[in-house]
């Protein structure tokens, strides 16, 4: 665990006790069973926003606390422990980051206070296929009068059902795959021509496919510069990835601890199975890998706070490592629980499903290993 200041320690402790009291895994199970369209519990999200969590990375002048990314990571780690579904990552971290990094004063004034208060949920509408590929943008934005007209579709938009603000990557020149010619737009969720279809994924979160059918926006909807949106998008994505890594770390640590507890109580062959060296050494390996992953995740969040130039490589390092470790731990959770781990009544399946969805989000391990190497020049 990184060395924390007093503020961060208080925030972490508050998150820990809220999650334990108000949002245990049973709350996630209830949400899943209810089939709620948003993919999260709106009341719980209101409580989180009331505690100020939606404003942690937002400057004070826009209604936030400006505590930074490591602080946000601490909350996400705690909510990740119990698989708490909420727009914290997509809205309060990712969408807020895009606005803080690239927004005009008017855009920030319009949207950030609402995001900080939890009144509006922001979402990134960026990918257009099954694999994360931020430059593969075909959705077109054509000049229309003083503004633009957006046509195309976006897939697997996280919190896409809840989004009142969509941050859309669109092509204003060039062809899919080019990094030049991408422009980011702020589109209200209720804009004419926006339609969404809920996606039912294994992790039961609120994802959607969103179609933009000639959606008209003003020139003031452009976030950052026309044709130069890719760099801003990557900066935003790196923050989202680091935040997701913190959430994955929490989930993986919890999955490991639950498994470890089980190894200490399950009796077979007349002794607890945790006394078997075959299982002990696998547990030791998981512990080792979790410690390594924690270092990478915390270093990425700290680099973002310090605004150092190695943010992209540290983020890819963290996402690659954390993805591998969560993958391993979630598989071992099911395997070491045996038959009970295969039942829907047990939580192990939730962790394994969430692991794969989180691995795929914002680039899987293969994506980030390749990116890490490219940044390093090989």
């Amino acid at each position: 665990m990184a060395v924390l200041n007093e503020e961060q320690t208080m925030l972490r402790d508050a998150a820990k006790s809220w999650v334990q009291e108000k949002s245990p895994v049973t709350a996630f199970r209830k949400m899943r069973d209810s089939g709620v369209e948003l993919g999260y519990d709106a009341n719980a999200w209101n409580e989180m926003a009331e505690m100020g969590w939606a404003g942690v990375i937002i400057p004070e002048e826009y209604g936030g606390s400006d505590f930074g990314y490591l602080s946000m990571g601490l909350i996400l780690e705690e909510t990740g422990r119990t698989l708490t579904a909420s727009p914290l990552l997509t809205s309060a971290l990712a969408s807020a980051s895009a606005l803080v990094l690239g927004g005009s004063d008017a855009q920030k004034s319009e949207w950030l206070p609402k995001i900080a208060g939890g009144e509006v949920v922001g979402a990134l509408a960026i990918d257009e296929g099954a694999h994360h590929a931020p430059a593969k943008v075909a959705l077109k934005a054509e000049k229309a009068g003083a503004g633009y007209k957006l046509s195309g579709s976006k897939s697997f938009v996280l919190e896409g059902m809840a989004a009142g603000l969509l941050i859309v990557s669109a092509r204003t020149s060039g062809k899919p795959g080019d990094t030049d010619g991408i422009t980011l737009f702020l589109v209200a969720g209720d804009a004419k021509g926006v339609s969404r279809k809920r996606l039912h994924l294994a992790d039961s979160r609120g994802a959607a496919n969103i179609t933009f059918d000639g959606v008209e926006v003003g020139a003031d909807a452009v976030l950052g510069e026309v044709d130069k949106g890719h760099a801003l998008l990557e900066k935003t994505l790196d923050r989202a990835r680091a935040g997701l890594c913190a959430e994955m770390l929490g989930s993986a640590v919890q999955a490991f601890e639950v498994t470890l507890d089980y190894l200490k109580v399950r009796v077979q062959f007349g002794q607890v199975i945790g006394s078997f060296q075959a299982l002990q050494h696998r547990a030791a390996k998981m512990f080792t890998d979790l410690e390594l992953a924690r270092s990478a995740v915390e270093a990425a969040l700290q680099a973002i706070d310090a605004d150092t130039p190695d943010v992209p490589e540290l983020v890819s390092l963290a996402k690659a490592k954390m993805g591998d470790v969560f993958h391993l731990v979630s598989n071992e959770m099911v395997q070491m629980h045996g038959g009970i781990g295969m039942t829907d009544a047990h939580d192990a399946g939730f962790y394994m499903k969430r692991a794969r969805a989180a691995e795929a989000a914002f680039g899987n391990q293969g994506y980030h290993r390749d990116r890490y190497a490219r940044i390093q020049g090989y």
Partner: protein
Amino acid sequence: MADFGGSDLDAFRTEARDWIEANFPKSLKGKGSMMMREERSEPTPDMDAWRKAMGEKGWGVPTWPAQYGGGGLTPAEGRIIQQELGRVGAYNPIGGMGVMMFGPTLLEYGTEAQKQQHIPAIVKGELQWCQGFSEPGAGSDLASLQTRAEDKGDHYIVNGQKIWTSGAQWAQWCFCLVRTDTTKKHEGISFVLFPMDVPGVEVRPIPLIAGNSPFCETFLTDVRVEKDQVVGPVNGGWTVAKRLLQHERSGLSGAGGGGGFGGRSLVKLAKDYVGADEAGRLADTDLRTRVIMNEIDGRAFQLTAMRAMAESKSNSGPSAATSIMKNAGTRWMQDRAELTIELMGHQGLGWEGDDFTPEELGAVRSWLGGKATTIYGGSQEVQNNIISKRILGLPDPK
């Protein structure tokens, strides 16, 4: 930690910089890591002078107490010395087992007379210590050791055989585990010291797969050990030994030193030997993936070492991360050594001769020699047992 304010540390930095400037022979610049790798070579006059200067100053062991010749400095000042040495390409000439393992243990468990007798020579780098722990029948299960010490009133007579005694052929003194009670296992072990030139000590170097002989077999026949050379209580040596092994592990994980075998980066080597495509990517995509994974593991390991250091500095107690360092560090270095010879192809299998570069010959030796790192200092499996039991609280089998 009693840290100084910034200005005091700045003043100390200036003092350290000036002293190093005045005493470090320029001819030795950048020679540190090279010397570490060479098994044993005659020191040059400059090397001797530098060792003497650092030894007299006590800065080779900056945080050891000044009353025994150590630097008597704070950890913050110690780090400044390290930084200032690094800044001018100077190395710390005071090292070896005495510094890394035995000295810190003796400072904790030794009597005043023992500390007065042994610590100053370690501080000055004047004599070498070797470790008489393992035996042919006591490897990972170290506490099953059989070397017997018989009580003869004012002294002991020791008989037995030690193995993997690192540097025994060069050492002047040995710290050794002996059995003083045969009726108990852990509680029958004592930690004793004796000079290597007493009658009855015979040393035979063991040729290893890498072609060198850093370890020895040591035969002890009626060796006399004085009673004032027992460290800690009689039959209480296991506690002392465990402490010493902790020092050994933190030194071996690479967390204490530079880690790895230096030289060119894996990526640079891969580009030279395997080539890159027009986009600059390693041409062999399978190898590229494995190089990436090793680079990522190495970086995560280094970040963990930094995190563990930050945590221990912040007074929040010892970091859980330290327990994983040996396995994580050695696993990464062994993978790296395997990748190195693989990407060199047959050139990476050269044993000797001028058909191979020194780098290629070094890669083979490092690959082979490095296999020991997951065996000694508590094997990988013993480390996993320690994590399972002490950190994770998993029980012993019935």
